[in-house]
Structure formats: structure tokens, C-alpha cells
């Protein structure tokens, strides 16, 4: 009896300890790793991605967190360099042991982090990078949130150039980073094949460049009817302004990264007539209820930020963070990393405001299709009277192309 009693007491204590440990584990914060460039010419990408996510996390935690657990995010500067991205990934995965990674980086870094995440079997939600090489890793661990794949951007741009602008001769100027180079080459291929557009010249420049006179003079010599510009908005603004100084009156078309009020600040009146694409639902200052509410909350959390914040990257990762949290919620209280992946795959036309009481809906609805690309939609805008105005008479079709055609995602 004494032995039985003693064993019973020990079993009870052990059971209690196991329950307490389980409860403690369940109550532990969910640690998310974040990477993005927070220094250098692309720092506005990394900082925007971080701050949008932080706002979402505040709201999610204020509403009780995910299945009773709070989300905690640890951020790293990847400097927009693949070499630093590798070190940052290993730190997050091996040292910090993050549960998942949220990406706020540029394309060449997203590829490196994606590969590391796949190798380590850690869910990776890319919120900002657009290179197809990230999704071409064909990993079930990798998702692309509010951003849009370059292949979808280029498909929309090709149709816009051929059918709306009706361009016959274009010159191309692109930055040498992964995103810009890939998008430029895709669009050139598309407009030549589909519409027989003559590409008169392709000029390149580096992120951080301040003088574009040789590229612009080479463009001017070929007398195009449009100039296609691919790169980040600061250099684009400088190039557009300098183009007008060199007597180039040709209309410019920019890409998704250029719809930014910082471009209007630097380029000034030279930007009039610029056409660009935009991926989120609303641009800064839009009077839609959700955007007004978002900007108010953002300004409250970051009161000292300049007038052009939040930018579209803030918006991307605000919405993408909610998608990640939704996946965690659906994975249940005993969430595993594999369970998170399977739960994310159930998101179809997901709007954060549908299932989170504090959320506002400001990104395109997300559906994680077979290739895990959450968003395939964008819209077109033109600079008129110093602001971006939507081009109402052109609605691009939502791409349905699967890429790769026979994608088989691997664990």
C-alpha cells in the first residue's frame, strides 16, 4: 500500500508537471524572425516591411494573440546583400530558433533566405520580394504574401504597354538589381513577342546612382515613343528629372516600386504623365475607410515618421503578417511548423478584416494557390497634378498562368 501510494503520488506529480509544461509552452510567445535592408539605398523597403508588421502584431496581440499566445518579432538588417542574408538566416534559424520567418527584403536576398528556410524546414512568408526565383525553389515551406511575382507584373505590364499605351518604339532603362533586371527582361520579351514592339535600346544603372546623363542621351538618340523605367523610386525620380533637363519629353512608364510619394518629392513637376503599377488596394491619402483608419493607427504608433510613411511596403507586411497569423490560428493551439504550412494553404481570398476584429483590409485578398503566391492582382495609375490618379479605363485581367507549369512543391 505504501509503495502503491508512493507510486500514485509520483505519477500524479509527473502528470501535473507535464500539464504545467504544456501550458507554459502553449503560453510561450510565438517568435517570428524578420529580415530586410535597414541601411543602404533600399532601407525604405526593410524599414517599411518591419514597421507594417509591427503594427499588425500590436493589433493581433491586443486582441488576445493567436490561440492565447502573443507574437514576438525579432528583426535583422540584411543590408540587401545575399552574403549578409545567409548570416542573418542562420542566426534566426539556428540561434534564435524562430518559429517562422517574415521577409521584408529585396529579391536577391529573398532567394537566399528562402533556400535556408527550405533547408531548415522553417515556414518563410515573403512579404515584399518579387523575384520568381524565390518561388521557383518550389518549397512547401515558402509563401509569397501581399507582394506580386515578377511574372505577373510583367504579364500585366506587357498588356498595358501593347493595348493601353499602344507603344510602337520603347527604350528601356533598368537598375542592375535582381528585381529590376528580371522584370525588364521579361517585359522586353513579352512586348516583342506579343505586340511586335521595337525596343530601341536597353540602358542600365546602379542603385544609388546620381547621374544618368549618358543613359538618357543614349535613349534620346533612339527617339522612342515611351521610356520604360525599372528600378527603385529614388533613382527613378532622379532619372526622370534629369531627362527633362536634357530636353526629353517622352512619357515614362515605371514599375510597382515607383508609386511612392518620395518619387513625387524628388522628381517634382518632371513626374507629370508618369504611369506606374500599384499592388495594394489604396495609395497614401486615399479616403477609403480602411486606409484612413490604417494611416491613423500608423501615425499614432510612429508619430515622428515623415509624411510619405506608411509606404506600400508598410502596407504589404501589415496585411501579410495578418495572413501569417491567420495560418497560425487555423493550425490550432498545438501548432507545429508543418501544421502552419498546411493551414496557410487553406487561405482563399483571405481578408484580414473578415476574421480579425481589429484588422483593416488594405491589401489584395490572398489565396495561396499551388505555387504559394498569395496575390496576383495590381492596378495602374498616372501622375496628374502632382498626385497618383488611378487609370480607370484599364483593368488588367488577373493572371491565371501557373508557374512553373508543373510546379510540385517539396517539403
Amino acid at each position: 500500500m505504501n509503495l502503491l501510494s508512493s507510486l500514485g503520488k509520483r505519477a500524479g506529480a509527473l502528470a501535473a508537471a507535464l500539464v504545467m509544461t504544456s501550458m507554459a509552452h502553449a503560453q510561450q510567445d510565438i517568435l517570428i524572425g524578420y529580415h530586410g535592408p535597414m541601411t543602404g539605398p533600399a532601407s525604405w523597403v526593410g524599414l517599411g516591411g518591419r514597421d507594417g508588421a509591427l503594427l499588425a502584431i500590436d493589433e493581433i496581440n491586443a486582441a488576445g494573440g493567436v490561440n492565447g499566445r502573443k507574437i514576438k518579432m525579432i528583426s535583422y538588417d540584411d543590408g540587401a546583400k545575399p552574403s549578409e542574408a545567409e548570416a542573418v538566416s542562420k542566426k534566426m534559424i539556428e540561434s534564435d530558433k524562430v518559429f517562422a520567418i517574415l521577409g521584408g527584403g529585396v529579391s536577391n536576398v529573398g532567394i537566399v533566405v528562402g533556400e535556408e528556410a527550405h533547408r531548415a524546414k522553417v515556414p518563410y512568408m515573403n512579404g515584399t520580394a518579387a523575384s520568381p526565383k524565390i518561388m521557383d525553389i518550389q518549397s512547401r515551406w515558402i509563401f509569397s504574401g501581399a507582394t506580386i511575382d515578377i511574372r505577373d507584373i510583367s504579364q500585366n505590364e506587357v498588356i498595358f504597354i501593347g493595348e493601353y499605351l499602344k507603344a510602337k518604339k520603347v527604350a528601356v532603362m533598368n537598375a542592375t538589381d535582381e528585381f529590376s533586371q528580371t522584370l525588364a527582361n521579361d517585359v522586353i520579351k513579352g512586348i516583342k513577342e506579343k505586340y511586335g514592339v521595337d525596343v530601341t535600346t536597353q540602358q542600365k544603372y546602379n542603385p544609388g546612382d546620381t547621374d544618368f546623363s549618358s543613359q538618357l542621351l543614349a535613349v534620346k538618340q533612339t527617339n522612342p515613343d515611351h521610356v520604360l523605367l525599372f528600378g527603385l523610386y529614388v533613382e527613378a525620380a532622379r532619372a526622370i528629372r534629369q531627362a527633362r533637363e536634357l530636353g526629353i519629353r517622352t512619357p515614362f512608364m515605371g514599375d510597382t516600386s515607383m508609386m511612392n510619394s518620395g518619387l513625387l518629392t524628388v522628381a517634382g513637376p518632371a513626374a507629370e504623365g508618369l504611369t506606374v503599377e500599384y499592388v495594394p488596394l489604396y495609395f497614401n491619402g486615399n479616403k477609403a475607410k480602411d486606409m484612413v483608419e490604417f494611416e491613423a493607427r500608423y501615425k499614432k504608433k510612429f508619430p515622428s515618421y515623415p509624411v510619405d510613411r506608411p509606404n506600400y511596403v508598410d502596407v504589404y507586411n501589415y496585411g501579410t503578417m495578418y495572413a501569417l497569423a491567420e495560418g497560425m490560428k487555423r493550425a490550432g493551439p498545438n501548432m507545429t511548423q508543418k501544421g502552419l504550412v498546411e493551414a496557410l494553404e487553406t487561405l482563399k481570398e483571405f481578408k484580414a478584416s473578415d476574421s480579425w476584429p481589429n484588422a483593416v483590409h488594405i491589401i489584395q485578398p490572398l489565396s495561396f494557390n499551388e505555387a504559394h503566391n498569395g496575390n496576383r492582382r495590381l492596378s495602374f495609375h498616372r501622375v496628374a497634378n502632382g498626385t497618383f490618379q488611378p487609370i480607370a479605363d484599364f483593368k488588367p485581367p488577373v493572371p491565371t498562368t501557373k508557374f512553373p507549369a508543373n510546379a510540385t512543391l517539396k517539403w
Partner: protein
Amino acid sequence: MELIPQLIVSGIAAGALYALVAIGLVLIYKATEIVNFAQGESVTVGAYMGWLFVTEFHMPYFPAIAAVMAASALVGIVVERVAYRPLIHSPPFTVILATLAVGLIIKNAIRLVWQDTPRTINGALSATPLEFAGVLITPERLAIIVTVAVVVTALMLFFRFTKLGKAMRATAQSQEAASLMGISVSGIFSKTWALGSALGGIAGVLIAPLIGINTELGGVLIPGFVAAIVGGFTSIPGAIVGGIMVGVFENFAGVYVSSSFKRVVSFVILIAVLMIRPSGLFGKPVRKQV
């Protein structure tokens, strides 16, 4: 529009900015034998100060330029006293590291206060191009070229005819001899840093309306540095010639070789000049007695 003359004029306009940076580098090196790797950040500081004076304090543009010069000079004096004066007897490599560190500190301090959001200044001059014999140039860019010409003339007169200028020349030739003649070498150092920083500040406030303001403006150090070496690191006229060469050659390389080659060309010029004339185009060979 004639392409070749336009390439030359646009190249001169770009090269004038590089020349301003190079002159600042040369001035500081001549007097103190320090290569100031933070000279690019003095351009950034000048641009942000210009923004503060024009946009926040509503100062007219031209008085703001004078204010930027004065403020930049003050920053130069403070940095010299705090960061470099204590290292006056340290090995050259230590001081070089210090200038790199100062540059990083300045850049990140600005980023901390104002983030990386681009800003601009409304310049007082027009951005509408003027045409001369088929060549286009805006009054803004012409102003940079004119400023370099005025700065060089003023410096020549300053070094030739003023007591302080002669004292700086004496210190540059021999710090020991200058000290023996009653010149305060440390005082000359302060004034040289002030002058070098003021030149960087002018470059920043002139370029700000053209390319906007962000914390990456200091990247202009690289072509400025190349210009200084090409010209001979102790020659102010050499710095100007070097700057213009870099600007013009970059443009020609960008059009006739490849736009990808444009940034590389300044280093190609550097290697080519140093192979033919190791002391630079206008520098004097240094002889050491062993």
C-alpha cells in the same frame, strides 16, 4: 542636339560636383596628411542643413548656402577636435579608420533623426534647360560649374595673398618649420577641416535640388576620391581636372561602351593615370631619403 558636345557639357556638370569633393579631400590632406573618408558625408550634412534652413526655417536659397557653409565649417571644427586631434600622433592607419568611423556615425545619426525618406530643396534657379549651340544645360547645373570656378579662384587668392592662407601653405610644406615660425599647427588643422567641410557642404546644398536628399549622398566620395588621386592628391587644379575627366569619361563610356561600364570607368582612368604618372597628373613625385 549634338551628342558629343552634350556628353562633354553634361560630363563637366557631373564632374564639377566630383571636383568640389576632391578639392575638400586635397585641402585636408595637404595640411594634415589625413585622407578624409568622411568627406562624402560632409556633402550629406550640407544637403540636410540646406533642407533645414530652406524648408524648415524658410530661409531664401542663396543666404541658406552661406548659412550651410558656416554650419558645415563648424561641424568640421567640432569633428576635428573630438575625433582627429586626439589621434594626432597615431599611425596613419588609425586616423584613416577614424575618418571611416566618423562617416558612418554621421550617416547613421542623420538616419536616426530623419529616416531615409528622400527630401528636396526648391532651388532658386530654374530647372528648364537653356540651349547654347544645340547643347542643353539647366541654370542649376551651370551654377555648380560656376561655383567650382569661383571656389578655385577664391582659394588661389586666399592661399596667395592672405596671412592665413600662407600659414596653411607653410604648414602643408612642413609642420615642424611652420611651428618654429610661430604658426599654431593645431589651429591651422582646425581651420583646414573647417574649410574642407564647408566645401562639402556647398556641394550638398547645390546638388540637393537636382537629385533629392537622402543618407546615401555620401556615395559621391568615390568619384571624388578618384578625381583627387588622378589630379595628384596635393593639387587643387589637379582635383578640378580630375573631376572633369571622371565626369566626361563616364559619360562617353556609358554611351559608346556600355551603360554597365559607366561606374567602372573612373577606376580604369585611375589605373591608367597612375601607371603613366604615379604621382597623378599635377602631383609632385615624393622622394624619401633612406
